[in-house]
């Protein structure tokens, strides 16, 4: 227990990094995932094909492989740099790329399933008043679709919180890697340290579930 109290600032710092990874890649995945969903339902076969290819490739590749590709492949081999002197900032942004690329494929599929729940008449009405495809999607279909899939989007966000730990594969000092280092430093306090970190994840994910459940009920489209 002492070890946890002594290292509390370090632990909180690690969780702050976890939160930053989650928020930044969460926002990017939501935007990019909706764009992908729009591509997959568009009238143009080129865009539909490109979207389907992206989603099928990214969804079936392990996240660890994607992160390793971003960190070692893009970072080390291709020399993609976000900061010349701060290595940890560099791996932070490279893992954001990996996490967003992966999560957006799942967001796309969730949003697409939401589009399927919007009644046919809504789109017909939109077309009848002369809206174009993009207007129909933006003004009529997507607002209803996204509201019906808030609960599944919430569980995606929940999965993302846990998936940020994979950034440990390229040395980002988020919660999991920090926990391992504390295990090394305090060999006698492994169980309290583990319980502390596990509690941290419960604290992060539990409110998310409650919030997405409440939002889903409040914003539900009455049909």
């Amino acid at each position, binding site marked *: 227990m002492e070890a946890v109290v002594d290292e509390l600032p370090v632990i909180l710092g690690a969780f702050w990094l976890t939160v930053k990874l989650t928020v930044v890649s969460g926002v990017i995945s939501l935007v990019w995932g909706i764009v992908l969903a729009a591509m997959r*339902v568009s*009238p*143009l*076969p*080129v*865009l539909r094909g*490109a979207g389907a290819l992206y989603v*099928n*490739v990214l969804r*079936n*590749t*392990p*996240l*660890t*492989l994607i992160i*390793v*590709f971003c960190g*070692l*492949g893009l970072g*080390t*081999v*291709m*020399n993609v740099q976000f900061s010349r002197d701060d290595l940890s900032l560099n791996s932070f942004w490279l893992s954001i790329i990996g996490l967003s690329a992966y999560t957006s494929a799942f967001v796309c599929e969730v949003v697409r399933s939401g*589009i399927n729940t*919007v009644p*046919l008449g809504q*789109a017909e009405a939109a*077309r009848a008043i002369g809206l174009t*495809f993009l207007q*129909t*999607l933006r003004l009529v*279909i997507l607002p209803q679709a996204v509201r019906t899939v808030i609960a599944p989007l919430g569980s995606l966000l929940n999965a993302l919180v*846990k*998936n940020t*730990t*994979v950034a*440990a*594969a390229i040395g980002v000092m988020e*919660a*999991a890697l920090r*926990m*391992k280092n504390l*295990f090394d430093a305090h*060999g006698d306090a*492994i*169980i309290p340290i*583990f319980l502390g*970190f*596990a509690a941290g*994840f*419960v604290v992060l*994910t*539990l409110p998310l579930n409650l919030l997405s459940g409440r939002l889903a009920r409040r914003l539900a489209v009455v049909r």
Partner: protein
Amino acid sequence: MTERGATVLYDVPGPRTRLRNNVLTLAFGVVLLLVAYFVWTKFDEKGQWKGELWEPFLRADTWTELILPGLLNTLTAAALAAVLALLFGAVFGIARLSDHRWVRIPAAVVVEAFRAVPVLMLIFFAQYGGSLAGLVVTEFAAVVFGLTVYNGSVLAEIVRAGILAVPRGQAEAGSAIGLRKNQVMRLILLPQAVTAMMPAIVSQLVVLLKDTALGFVVAYADLLNAGARVVPANYANLIPSVIVIAVVYIAINLALGYLATWLERRSRRSRKVSADPAAAEMAGGEVPLVR
């Protein structure tokens, strides 16, 4: 969806829309090709398409000595973890539905706790916690432990939802003919629940298979380790090597995905076949069966 080329979101295109669509197709096609060309030249600048980086994958010994052993380790860990996770899921899923509070509540705590903790943390904990208890925990054991308890907890929720989705009358009918509680569960509820939940179970097994790649972090000699450490150590070709093993992962997971779709179609067909004659018999072929 009535006519070819039409969906909910847009009409069957007329001549002007067809023309516009063709122009847009061309424009977006050019944009996508430019993106692909940009990526290609960036990799080309760093010499990633050079023949000698890809040539190792045309030789049999690269596969038999470096990649396939990794694939075998990935599949071994995934298979063992899948079996254990299914057992874990069945036990805890059923325990959460127990009539006894002292069974139900601890089971719920275990399932909810393991679902909230990232797999990588469970793997680290198995390594360090095991050695604390005087056990020698191999990387293999740690990976299997993490995958089992995490995916087992998710499967427990799937099993629980599946059992709750079986119509109540089924359990009541079982009790009415004098079956015990565990017989009702074993003979009536579980078989129906598992059939209905098969697609969800298979997709969770895809997740499990993908997560074996976490073994890379603790240096388990799996497929990702082969592609990102072993092969590049021999030929200095990290990017080609990672691309090749990504293709292997995608092929395996797509195959599992098709298996899930096939199972779903099959179970839907068999339920229809088994339900309809019974419905016709009971209702004299007039009243539709309400489920």
